[in-house]
C-alpha cells in the first residue's frame, strides 16, 4: 500500500491532536473519581531498573497510594545534573505539590529550584553533607533528608570487611561499583573496607592506614589500584568496577578477579548482580551492600552471598510521611525550625534465616512502615521528637 504525503501529514496532525483528546479524557476520568484531589507528589529517580528501585516504587505506587490520598508521578531515569534539572522543571510546570528525590547529582540546585517554586522537597535514601545542610536547613520548603549518611556508608563497608576478617579470611577482591563515576556512597564503602583491613599493622593502601587518607587516595585516583595495597597478612587479589557488561575487556577483568581465587569479593554495591553467575561453584563468597530482594535471598541460600547489608523497601516510608505532613500544613521540623536530617542505617544479614526474617517482615502488603505507623506523623499528630525516635527505631547500629 502506498502512503501519500498528505495521508502521512494528516496522520501526524491526528497524532498531535489526539494528545489533546487523550488529555480531555484523562481529565474526565479524574473528575469521576470523586472526593478531594489527591496530593500530587513527584519522585525524582536516578535508578529506575534495579530491584531495589523497583521495590521502592512498588511501595509508593501500590501500598502508599492505596492508603493515603496521594498520587505519585515518577521521572524518567535521570543520569546527571542537567537531566535532574529538566525533570524538576517538568515537575514544577505540572503543579507537583511535593518532590521526593532519589537523585543526587546536584542536590543544592534541586533544593533551590523547589524553594523558588514554593514546592516541598525531600531527600530519600541519603543525607546532605554538613555544609549543604547548614546552607539549606532554614529553607521553608526543604522538608529534610532521611537515609544513610556518608558516615553510615563508610561504616557499612568497614563492618563488612571486618566481619570477614573475623571469619579468618585473608584473600580479598574488591568490587568498587561506581567508584570511577565518583558515586560518593560507593567510594565511602570501598574506603571503609580498606580501612578495616588497614587496621592490621602491616597493612596499608597507598601508604595510608587511616580512613581519611585512604578516602583521599581513592578520590584522587578515581579507582582502586591493587599494586598500592601492601600487607603481610592479607592479599588483595583483584579489583573490578562499573557495570560494562557488553565490554569484552570488562568481562575479562571480571573473569580474572574470579580466577585470582579470593576468599571473598567485597562489593560496594550490586555484588551479586555482577559476580553471581561467575562465582557459582568456585567457593568464593560475596559480601554485598545492596537491598533485601528475592534475588539476594536466593543467593544467600545458595551460599554465594555470605553477608548482606541492605536497605529495606519501606525504609522510605518516614520521608513520605514527613513530606505529606508538610503539604498538609503541619510540617515536622527539627529544633530551631530547621529541616530534618535523620540517619537510617542498613540491616545486616549473615545467614539465610536472618535474611528471610527481614524479608518476610517487610512486604508490600505488610511493610514495616505501614499505614498505622505513618498516619500519626502524616496527619500531624506527633512532633519531631517522636518522629526522630520512630526513624531511629529501625536503624541498624553496628555491633
Amino acid at each position, binding site marked *: 500500500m502506498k502512503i501519500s504525503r498528505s495521508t502521512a501529514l494528516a496522520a501526524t*496532525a491526528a497524532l*498531535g491532536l489526539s494528545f489533546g483528546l487523550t488529555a480531555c479524557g484523562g481529565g474526565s476520568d479524574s473528575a469521576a473519581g470523586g472526593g478531594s484531589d489527591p496530593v500530587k507528589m513527584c519522585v525524582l529517580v536516578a535508578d529506575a531498573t534495579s530491584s531495589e528501585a523497583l521495590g521502592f516504587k512498588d511501595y509508593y505506587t501500590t501500598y502508599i497510594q492505596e492508603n493515603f490520598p496521594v498520587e505519585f508521578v515518577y521521572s524518567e531515569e535521570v543520569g546527571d545534573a542537567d537531566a535532574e534539572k529538566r525533570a524538576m*522543571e517538568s515537575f514544577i510546570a505540572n503543579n507537583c505539590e511535593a518532590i521526593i528525590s532519589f537523585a543526587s547529582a546536584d542536590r543544592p540546585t534541586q533544593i533551590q529550584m523547589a524553594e523558588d517554586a514554593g514546592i516541598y522537597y525531600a531527600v530519600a535514601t541519603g543525607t546532605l553533607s554538613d555544609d549543604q545542610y547548614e546552607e539549606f536547613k532554614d529553607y521553608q520548603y526543604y522538608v529534610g533528608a532521611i537515609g544513610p549518611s556518608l558516615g553510615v556508608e563508610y561504616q557499612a563497608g568497614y563492618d563488612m570487611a571486618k566481619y570477614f576478617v573475623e571469619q579468618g579470611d585473608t584473600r580479598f577482591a574488591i568490587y568498587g561499583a561506581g567508584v570511577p563515576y565518583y558515586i560518593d556512597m560507593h567510594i565511602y564503602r570501598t574506603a571503609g573496607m580498606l580501612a578495616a583491613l588497614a587496621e592490621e599493622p602491616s597493612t596499608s593502601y597507598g601508604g595510608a592506614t587511616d580512613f581519611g587518607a585512604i578516602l583521599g587516595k581513592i578520590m584522587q585516583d578515581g579507582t582502586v589500584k591493587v599494586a598500592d595495597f601492601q600487607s603481610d597478612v592479607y592479599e588483595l587479589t583483584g579489583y573490578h568496577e562499573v557495570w560494562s557488561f557488553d565490554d569484552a575487556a570488562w568481562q575479562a577483568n571480571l573473569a580474572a578477579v574470579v580466577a585470582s581465587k579470593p576468599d571473598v569479593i567485597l562489593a560496594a554495591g550490586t555484588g551479586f548482580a555482577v559476580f553471581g553467575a561467575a562465582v557459582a561453584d568456585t567457593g568464593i563468597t560475596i559480601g554485598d551492600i545492596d537491598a533485601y530482594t528475592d534475588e539476594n535471598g536466593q543467593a544467600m541460600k545458595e551460599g554465594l552471598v555470605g553477608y548482606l547489608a541492605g536497605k529495606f523497601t519501606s525504609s522510605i516510608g518516614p520521608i513520605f510521611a514527613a513530606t505529606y505532613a508538610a503539604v498538609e500544613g503541619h510540617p515536622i521540623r527539627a529544633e530551631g525550625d530547621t529541616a530534618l536530617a535523620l540517619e537510617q542505617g542498613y540491616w545486616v544479614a549473615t545467614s539465610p534465616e536472618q535474611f528471610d526474617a527481614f524479608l518476610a517482615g517487610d512486604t508490600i502488603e505488610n511493610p514495616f512502615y505501614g499505614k498505622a505507623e505513618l498516619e500519626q506523623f502524616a496527619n500531624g499528630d506527633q512532633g519531631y521528637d517522636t518522629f526522630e525516635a520512630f526513624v531511629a527505631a529501625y536503624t541498624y547500629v553496628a555491633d
Partner: protein
Amino acid sequence: MHDLTQRTRPGANGTSGPNGTAARRRSPRELVPALAPLLGLVVLTVAFVVVGTVSGVNMSYSVQTLINQSVVIVIIATGAIFIFAMGSFDISLGASTLVAAMVGGLAYNATESLVAMLVACILTAVATSLVSASLAAVFNLPVFVTTVAMLSVLGAVAVALVQTTGGAQIKVDSSFARQYDTLPVKLSVAVAFLALCVFLFTYTRLGRVEKLIGGNPVTARLTGVSMKKTAIAAFAIAGLGVGLGAFLTVLRTPTMTTSSAADIGMNVLVAMVFGGMPISGGPRTRIYAALLGGLSMAVLNQTMTTLLATSSAGNGISQVVRALFFLAVVWVATSGHRSKLLPR
C-alpha cells in the same frame, strides 16, 4: 576562482521575472514536504496548549521551561549545520560541549570572571573543533572518523579535568550561575548566534559553497572550491556554537560530572533531522532546521510528560510516541528528496 554567487533565475521560486513572465509556483506536492517541520511544530504547539490547559499546567513556567530546555540544543545544532551541510558528520559535539564547559568552569573558579569563563568555553570548543577538521584535512580522512577518535579523547580529557579537583565534580558557584542563568541572557546569546549563522549561511559565499560540497563534492572541487578551507571555516563556526552552548550549560548546570551533557550529541542530531535537515547535507540544507527541530523536541517532550507522567507505563509510552512523531515528520519532510536528483 569561479564566482559561486547564485543569481536568481527570472521567474524562479515564485517571483516575477524582470520581463513580467508568470512566476513558477510550487505545487502542493513540493510545499507539503518543505513545510512539514513547521507544520509539525504548529501541531505540537497546539497539542501542548490543549494538553497543558486541560491538565492545569502552569503555562508561563512551562514556556520558560521549553526555552531553557531547547536553547542549548538549538545553538549547538545551528552551528553544526555548517558541518552537516557539507555532508560531514560530527559525533563528538556532546563531548566537546562537556570539555568546553568544564574548562570554562575551571576558568571561572580560577578568575571569578564571567568573561574569562565565556572566552575559555569558546576557545576550547573552537580549538577542539579545529583539531577534528585539521586531522581530517592532514590525513585525508572522513570527518566522521576523526570525530569518533575525538569522542574518545575528549571523554578521557573530561575525566582528567574532573580529577584535577580531587573529587567527583567541577562546581561553579551556584549563586553566581543563577545570576546569569536567565531568559534574557539565553535569548540574547541565541539570537546573536542565530543571526550570525543565518547571515553567513544565507548571504555569504560560505553557505552556498557548503551546500555545493554537500550536494556534489566532485563538482565543487572542479569548480575550484577549497574543501579544506571550507571545512575549517565550518568547524570553526560549529565550535563557536559549541562554546556558547557550553557557556550556557555551565550557567544552567553549575555542577559538572563526566556524565554531564551526555545526551547533547544525540539531541543535536535529532533536532536537526526533526527540523527537516537532510542528513546528507547539500542544497536542501536550511539554517533554520535546528531552531524548528529543537523547539519541536522540547514541545513534544513537555507535552508527553504532562500527558503520560501519571501512567505507570508513561515514560515508555512517551518514548514510543516521540519516536513515531519524529518518524512521521521526517518522512513527510524528506519524501520529496527521494523523487528528484536535485532541487529546483
